[in-house]
Every structure is written in C-alpha cells, then in structure tokens.
C-alpha cells in the first residue's frame, strides 16, 4: 500500500516558480490504479516523486506504513518500488539481457530473459543480445522497459504512459502483463494513462488536474464521467494523435 500525504512539488521554469503538485493526498491499495488527466497536469511529476527521482518540498510518502520520503532512488528501488519511464533510456553497449539481469538483481539465464521478452511480444532470440541503443525503435524500447518491470516484480510498480508507442502490440497483451505481474507480486500497479481500455480495467481511477486530485473513485464512478465530459475530447485527441 502506498500513501501520499499532502504532497506538494514546485519547480522553477524560466525564473518563475511553478507549483506542479499541490497538496496531493492519495492511498493506493488496489491492484490497478490509473492516474489520468490533461497533459501538464502533474501526472508524470507525481510518478517521479513516488520513484524518488524528484523530491517534494512538502508531504510524506509511506510504503506499507514505512515512511520512505527521505529514501534515495536506489533505496526506494530496493524497498520494492519499480518505475517504467515514459521515454525509456538508451545505453550504448548494454544489451537487453544485461538490462533484464540488472532489473532482476541477478544474472539470469537466456531462458528467463526470453520468457520476459515473450510476455511483451518480442521474439526473444532476436533481442537478447541487442544493445539498447538507437537501433531499437521507440516501441521496442517501451516493451523492453515493461519486460524489466516483469523481471523486477516488486510490490509497487509505476508505469508512466505504457501505451505510448506500442501500436503494433495489442492493449490486451499489455493488460495481460499487468495481470501477470499482479499475480506474481500481489502488489499494487499504478498506471499513468490516457487510454480508455487501460482505464476500463482499473480498480480505481484518479483524475489529476492542475496539480490537484480533481476526482477519484472506482472505475464505475469515474469512467462514465470521464468519457462523457470534456476530458473525453482530450483522451480522444490523445488516441488519435
């Protein structure tokens, strides 16, 4: 269970201090929690605050009751938080198998690496020795990123827009990965998303707007309003774009 208590985060852009997260309080204890909202609403910032990449100026973060606010990125990773980047990072010379091994925290066999890659729809044999460099497409990188999350299988995983760039791979497969991960860990999965199909499997949906929690509740409570309201246009634009 992850608890965010009165989280505020400000950053300076062009000499102007801007409040990006404004007193956010949330309790995440369901299997799948989707966080949605307009672009620039602070969703990705919130994900980075959970992973420890950004430090909030105010508020506390608790993981299963333990205060992790002061923990570094590494310490949070070790305590059971995984974070899938919106834009995966490239590395010259580090292979897919290396990265999955790092994620798993041990040397893994080719067979294991292959099983993770197969889960994300990549033909493993073609990929395990590939470098994670510019030769891989954005969609391939994204799937490898998701495979590393599977290899980690921690009690909390945060995905920042996992749907971006996976056009050749079905959403159903992505959802299967979430389900598999949940069955392995019994933990919580937080998904920042604009995708209706992902929202429709969420146990709970949080709508963020202007750095604040605008609404939250079960998908039955939130989704109809989302699809019927102005947010729908935003979501549709995003899907078409």
């Amino acid at each position: 269970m992850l608890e965010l208590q009165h989280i505020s985060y400000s950053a300076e852009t062009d000499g102007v201090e801007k409040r990006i997260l404004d007193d956010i309080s949330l309790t995440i204890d369901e299997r799948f929690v989707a966080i949605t909202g307009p672009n620039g609403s602070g969703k990705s910032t919130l994900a980075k605050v959970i992973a420890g990449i950004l430090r909030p100026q105010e508020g506390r973060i608790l993981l299963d009751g333990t205060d992790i606010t002061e923990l570094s990125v590494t310490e949070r990773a070790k305590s059971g938080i995984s974070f899938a980047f919106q834009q995966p990072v490239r590395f010259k010379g580090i292979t897919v198998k290396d990265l999955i091994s790092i994620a798993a925290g041990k040397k893994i066999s080719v067979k294991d690496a292959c099983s993770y890659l197969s889960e994300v729809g990549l033909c493993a044999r073609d990929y395990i020795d590939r470098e994670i460099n510019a030769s891989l497409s954005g969609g391939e990188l994204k799937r490898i990123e998701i495979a590393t999350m599977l290899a980690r299988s921690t009690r909390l995983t945060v995905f920042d827009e996992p749907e971006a760039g996976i056009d050749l791979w079905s959403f159903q497969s992505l959802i299967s990965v979430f389900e598999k991960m949940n069955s392995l860990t019994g933990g919580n999965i937080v998904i920042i998303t604009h995708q209706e199909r992902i929202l429709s499997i969420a146990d709970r949906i949080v709508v963020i707007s202007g750095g604040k929690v605008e609404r939250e509740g079960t998908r039955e409570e939130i989704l109809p309003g989302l699809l019927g309201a102005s947010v729908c246009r935003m979501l549709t634009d995003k899907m078409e774009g």
Partner: protein
Amino acid sequence: MNEIEKMLLMQIADLHKVPDGAYNIRKDGDGDGRRSTPHIRIENRTDGKSGIDIFVSSQTQNESVHIPVVITKSDYREKVYNDFYVEAGADVLIIAGCGIHNCGAQTSEHSGVHTFHVGKSARVRYVEKHYGEGDGRGGNIMNPDTVIYLEEGASMLMETTQIKGIDSTMRTTKAIVAAGADLVVKEKIYTHGTQFAGTDFTVELNGEGAGADVVSRSVAADHSKQKFASRIIGNAACNGHTECDAIIMDEAQVVAVPELTANSVDAQLIHEAAIGKIAGEQITKLMTLGLTESEAEEQIIRGFLN
C-alpha cells in the same frame, strides 16, 4: 614462469597455459617459448633488429598465433619489430599484447612495430591488449605502431584494448587498402589518473570497393587526457567511416580530430565524433533498478567499453 608473469599473460592474451597453435612469448627482451606449426612459421629477424617474422601460409584456415610480450623489470626499455606475412587465402587469428608489471621507481617502456602484409583475399583478425600494473612509482609506457598492407579482397579486423594501467601511450596505425579489401578497427581505451593515450590512424583507400571502418570508444576519467586523430583518404570509389565516441568524466580532457580527404568523386567518407559525460537519465534509470550511483556509472562504462 612465475605468478606475476602468468597473471600478465592472462590479462593480455587470456592465456592460462601454453597456447594451442603457434606462439612466441617474449619476456623482458628474451624469448620464453616458441612454437611453429606446419602452416605458421615463426623465425628470428635477419636484419639485426629485435623481433620476429611470422609467415602464415595460404593453407592456414582458422588457426591462431599468440605473440604476447611480458615485462616485469623496472627501468627497462625496448623496441621490437614483428612482421607478419599472410599469404593469399589464409584465415588467421593473431593475438598480440603487452603486459607490464613495474614495481620499481623507474619507467618501463615497450615500443612495438607490427607490420602486416596481407595477401589477396586473406582474412586476419588481430587482437591486441595492453595492460599495465605495478606497486612502485615507475611509469608504464607503450607505443605500438601498426602498419597494414591489404591486397585485393583481403580483410582485417583489428581490435585494440587498453583498460587502465598504462601511463602513456601513443599508438600509430597506418593502412594501405587495395581494391575490394576491407579494414575494420575497433579501439577501446580507458584512461584514469594522469594517464595520456593518443591514437593516430591514417587509412588510404586506394582501389575500387576498398573499405575502412575505424571506431574508437573511450572513457577518460580523473585528470587523464586522450587524443584521437583519424585520417581517411579516399583515392577511388570506396567507403570510409571513422567514429570517435568518448565519455568524459571528472577533470579529464578528450580531443577528437577526424579528417577526411576525398581524391575521387566516388569516394564516400563519413566521420562522426561525440564526446560527452554520462547522461544523468542513464544513471537515474539504473538507480530505479536498484543500483547505487557508483554501480550505475560502473555498469554504463563497462557496457560502453564492452
């Protein structure tokens, strides 16, 4: 052979024992074992210079020659000339390398001049590793010169590696590439402390279909300095590519000087040079997978130089 010598041999040639195939081991200026094979003949030079001649016959297929050099003395300097004559159609792996263990206060230096005459359609893979260590204050210096003549259709892959331990190196490589022949160079260098590593490549592509791909990946840490110069001269319808990719850290300095000369309208020559620090997001990414900052840095460098 004592433990230090065995360790040096392992570092530079992955040798745990006497190698299979042809070999010549040189230790502190003297021969310390040699074997010729039916296809590969190793002989002393006849021109009075220190070094050996290696003759690789055209019958040679998938065979190897090891010619490691080990220096364990302090205040020792040598210049060695090794010439390779690879006949047409041969296919050979040549593993050279020099390891210095200098525990004295004086400088030890090895300068090697390797000249390759590679016959028509022959294939050579040349692996060269340089390694230095020592518990004294003496410097380790290595200055390898490589001269390569590739005849029509020949190909050569040259892999050179120098990971730490060498205080100063100036490596010069010159290659003359004939029609249809192909040279690939993969260089990896890691300098730290106050080390200096300079590399200077000159490749002449003299015939139709000649090709060269000279790629250097390096990491410069602490106060070390590196200079990479690469010159490709296209005199015919040929393809040349040179690339310097360097990670710079701490107070280090890296200079990259690519130079292309096209003397033919059909010469296609490309150079790329990139110098930069480790991207912060790479470190952050690996930290989110549980590595510490220093482990992440180490992993990135190891991968980069892999």
